[in-house]
Structure formats: C-alpha cells, structure tokens
C-alpha cells in the first residue's frame, strides 16, 4: 500500500480547512486586542485584554454561559433520544414508510428564521397561536411560552428543527446493522429491549457521536432563533453566548469585543468538545 495515498487524499480537505481556520482566527486574535468599533473606526489602538474583560464582565455573561450549556445539553438529549426512537420506529417497513420519512425530515428544510417566526407567531403566541387554542380546547389557561418559558421555548424550536437531522442519520445507520448479529443476540436470549440496549445502541454509537458533535457545534452558535423570538429576553433568560456576541458585533458594532467574545466561544466550544469527546470519543473508530 502506498503510504502517501491516505495523506494525499486528506490533503485538500486539510489544507483548505487550515486556511479557512487560520486567516480569520489570526484576524480575530488581532481585533480582540485592539479597540475596534465599526461605528468609530478612527478610535483604534492596542488595548490589551480590555475587550475580554469587558465581555466577561457583561452582566448577562454568566447567565449566557449557563443558557448556552442548557440549550446545548437539552437539545442534544432531546434530539438523540427522540431521534433514536423515531429511527427505530420507521426502520421496519410499514404502509407509507416512504412518505413518513419525507415528512419527518422536512422540518430540517425550514430556514432558522422561518422556523422561529413560525413557532413564535403561529404556534406559541398566547392569544392566537395554535398551542393556545389547544390549551383552551382542553379548558386550560394558555401558556405564555416566550415570557414564562423563554429558554424552553427556544429549546423546543431548535429541537424541532434538529430532530430530523438526528433521525435521518440514525435511520441510515440502522440499515447497516448486521441482521445476523441481532439473530445471535436473540439466540442468546435477548429480548427486544435487550437487543436495543446491547446491539442496536452500540451500533448507533458512532452515529450518535457524530450527531452530538455536529449538533454541539451548531447549537453553540445559535442566535437567529433567539434574535427573532425573544431578543434574548426577558432579561437575559434566553441570552446565550452566541447572542451576546451577536449583540456586540451586529447591534453594537463593537468588533473588538465581539472578537474577544468569539474567542471565548471557541474556548467554550473546545471545553465542551473535550468533555464530549471524553464521553463518546471512543465510539468514533
């Protein structure tokens, strides 16, 4: 076997990604230590770590870190658990499976902004939203989702959107499960649940690792949904780190602080990634 071949095959991906990473990263590093507000580009100069200091002393900072982690954790748990369930449910043939598959993955096709507007107005509005009507139908007081449960609402929207992603990946992965292994397990006396526990889930482990890592990356930088629905509020109840950065970058136009925030987000993502990789990494190979 040609020892160079594997590297040659990887080279384009590695090289382009390296460029894609290093240039913005270097610039961001630079911006993070200078004064740089888009609205006042003339006021510039090296200011050391002041941008970082300003970012982490933001009154919403602690809450935003916690919210980020909450959002991350709950959406991942919800999508992975339900996604596995759904994938299992539609793995075996039944009438209309093809259509069900398509309908199930459709929410992923909806753009994040539309998703947010859809939930905010048509579903969760406490007066004319569909949910409110359902609550009323059962004689209950409609829930004022975005005010009472802002973070939960965001979690619901995002889970709704990412569930199809998990389902799709698990669905394809399930198909490569060797039938004979299941048969062997049955011979060993495994009930359906035990087959799930010992055969199917371990088989899905790699896909789960992939889903979790990819979702983590996306979820850590979610802001469009928050911007559109709650604007991070009430208070900082639904502000996450990405939204905090977004506020700095595109609402206050402070590129310096935003860069510092972005670097902090990279740090946070790395911490989360290292934690997750500890947890699930061995499933990757």
């Amino acid at each position, binding site marked *: 076997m040609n020892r160079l071949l594997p590297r040659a095959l990887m080279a384009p991906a590695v090289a382009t990604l390296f460029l894609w990473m290093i240039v913005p990263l270097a610039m961001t590093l630079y911006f993070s230590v200078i004064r740089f507000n888009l609205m006042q580009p003339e006021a510039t100069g090296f200011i050391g770590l002041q941008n970082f200091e300003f970012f982490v002393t933001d009154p919403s900072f602690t809450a935003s870190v916690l919210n980020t982690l909450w959002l991350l954790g709950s959406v991942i748990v919800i999508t992975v658990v339900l996604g596995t369930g759904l994938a299992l449910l539609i793995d075996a043939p039944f009438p209309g499976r093809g259509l069900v598959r398509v309908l199930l993955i459709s929410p992923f096709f909806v753009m994040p902004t539309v998703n947010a507007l859809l939930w905010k107005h048509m579903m969760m509005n406490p007066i004319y939203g569909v949910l409110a009507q359902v609550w009323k139908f059962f004689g209950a007081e409609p829930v004022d989702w975005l005010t009472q449960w802002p973070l939960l609402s965001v979690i619901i929207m995002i889970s709704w959107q990412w569930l199809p992603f998990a389902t799709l990946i698990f669905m394809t992965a399930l198909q490569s499960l*060797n039938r*004979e*292994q299941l*048969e*062997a*397990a*049955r*011979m*060993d*006396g*495994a*009930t359906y649940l*035990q087959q799930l526990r*010992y*055969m199917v889930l*371990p*088989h899905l*482990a790699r896909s789960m690792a992939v889903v979790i890592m990819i979702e983590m990356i996306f979820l850590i930088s979610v802001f469009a949904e928050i911007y559109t629905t709650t604007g991070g509020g009430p208070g900082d109840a639904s502000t996450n780190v990405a939204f905090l950065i977004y506020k700095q970058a595109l609402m206050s136009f402070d590129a310096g602080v935003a860069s510092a925030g972005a670097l902090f987000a990279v740090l946070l993502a790395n911490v989360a990634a290292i934690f997750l990789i500890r947890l699930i990494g061995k499933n990757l190979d």
Partner: protein
Amino acid sequence: MAYLELKGIQKHFGPVHTIRGIDLAIQQGEFIVFVGPSGCGKSTLLRLIAGLETITDGSLMLDGRDITDAPSSKRDLAMVFQSYALYPHMSVFENMSFALKLAKADPAVIRDKVERAARILNLTPYLQRTPKELSGGQRQRVAIGRAIVRSPKVFLFDEPLSNLDAALRGQTRVEIARLHRELGATTIYVTHDQVEAMTLADRVVVLRDGRIEQVGTPLELYDKPANQFVAQFIGTPQMNVVPASQVPQLEDVCGLPVPPAGFVGLRPESVTIVPAGQGPFNGRVELLEALGAETLIYLSTEGGAQLVSRQATRTLLQVGQTVGVAIDADAAHLFDAQGRVTRHGAAAPVKVAA
C-alpha cells in the same frame, strides 16, 4: 416421544424452494450430525429450528410444545453461526459472556465459565480483543465459545470447526463430545468433515436438495448406504461408483448379481494394486497422491472406469504405468439404474487382536 420433532418442514425463499419437507424425530440428549453437499439446506434447517427464519409449512415441537412460531429468545437454544455473527463492539470476553449476562448469572460464575471456555479454545490471551483484531480461526473459536458457555436445551453448531487447524480441530472436537456427555444437551451439528461426522454423531442425517436421503448411525451409513448418493457422500476419498458395464469382470468372474444398467460401488481400500496382469483386469496410473501415511492411486481401467485405490504404504509407481487391479468383490455395493442399493458389500474386516 421425541424431544425435538420436525414435521413436514418446508421453506421457500420467494421462488426458491429450499427445504422440501423434512420429517425428523430427535431424542433427548442425542447428538445428530447433518451432512450434505454445500447448498443443500443444512444451515437453513438449523435456522428454522432456531426460529431465525419463519417456517413456510410444517411444524416444530420441542419437548412436547409446539414452537413453530415461538420467538428465538424463548427457545433456549445455543447456536454457532456459520458466519460467526460476533458482536463487533464487544470484546471476546463480552461476546462469550453475553448470554450469561442476559440470564443474570452471577458475575463470578460468568468469569469462571468464560475463562474455562477460553482455556479450552486457546483464547485466553485474546479475551480483551474485539473481533476485528482476531484471525479467522480465532473468530470461529469465539463463536463456539459463545455457545458452549451456556447450558441450553439444544445446541446448534453450523460448521463450527471449519477454520481451525487439524490439531485444534481434534482437540475442540473432543471437548464438544465431552461437553455433550456432561450436559446431555441435545445437539445438532453441521459439518463437512467426515471424521467429525463419524466420531461425534449418534445419528447422521444426510441431506440433499432440501430432503433427507438417509438417517442412521455413522457406521450404518458407511456400511449400508441406502443409495449411491449416500454411499459416495460418506467416506473419503469417495467410494468408487462405476457403471457395471465398465467392470464386466465383476459379474463374470465373481458372479455378483449386478442389476441391468446398474452401478458397482467400491471403497478405495477395496481396490488394490497388483503386478500388471495378475489381477482380473489392468489399469493405468493416472495420478498419485502421497498423503504421508497413505497413498491414493488414481487409475483408469481398460473398461474405461475411473478408480481410486488407497494403500497404507508409499509407492514406487509412476504415472502412466500399467498395473494390475484386484478387487475385493465381497465388499462391492451394487446399485440399480436409479442409484438405489440392491446389495450391500461386506463391512471392513474386523481385527480380532487382543
């Protein structure tokens, strides 16, 4: 009453009719060996018994209970798959202990049993490896180990030793026999190895094309095959079966009642080489195979028959040489035109020593 009873079992894979009506009654504790040509339906039959395939027609009784539709996990059988079907994400130890773990056995007991099985199968150094880090034979041994740590009602082995070297195969065969003696579990064993079939079986079932050709003890099949197929299938090298017309000497000289258009069956050991002209007919040496302890001599006779002779000595013969061929007419089996046996030859001589 039979312990495991197959009644008119049939199996279709779509248009392919694989099992064409199997009736078989197996007693508790019996060791049954299935043999038959590749593709005749042995694995399918095991899988039907295991409940891994639905039975198209017929019924299956275990211990007086109809289990035709019972789920596999409720049948309490252990099976060694022909393709191993190891759990790829589990170590060897976990593979072997899985069934016991499900049965909620005591961990100490599990450890004990698995280690014992691993010792028997020379797997001890590999207990922590995963299947993909094992050689073919090691994988097969894990598959065996997975079955033998259990004490099921019925063992199903599908060519369990095919990838093992001779020494290990002999050793494992002895262990399986011992296990069978100790547990007294009913065992169904598929093999292509004559030695395994002859030494392990209480009864051998010869299958062909999804049907049973003959059932009997190993020596019964060897000595009294019901037809030409069984005669040729049991014993290696194969019995020589030649059209009677090619060896007229048999009828003429020895006076055997050869059926018209029939066949004569001669085991290789019944064919001996004598100096040219000294036997009833001559033959040409086509091929010589020296197997160490014995030698196989492939001959073509003047009458056009192809014969194999087996002798326990080396030979100085050369390919192409003409030799005399002697035949033990007593041992000759005779078959009619349809291959049905009309006369059984005498069994091999018995040494009365000691």
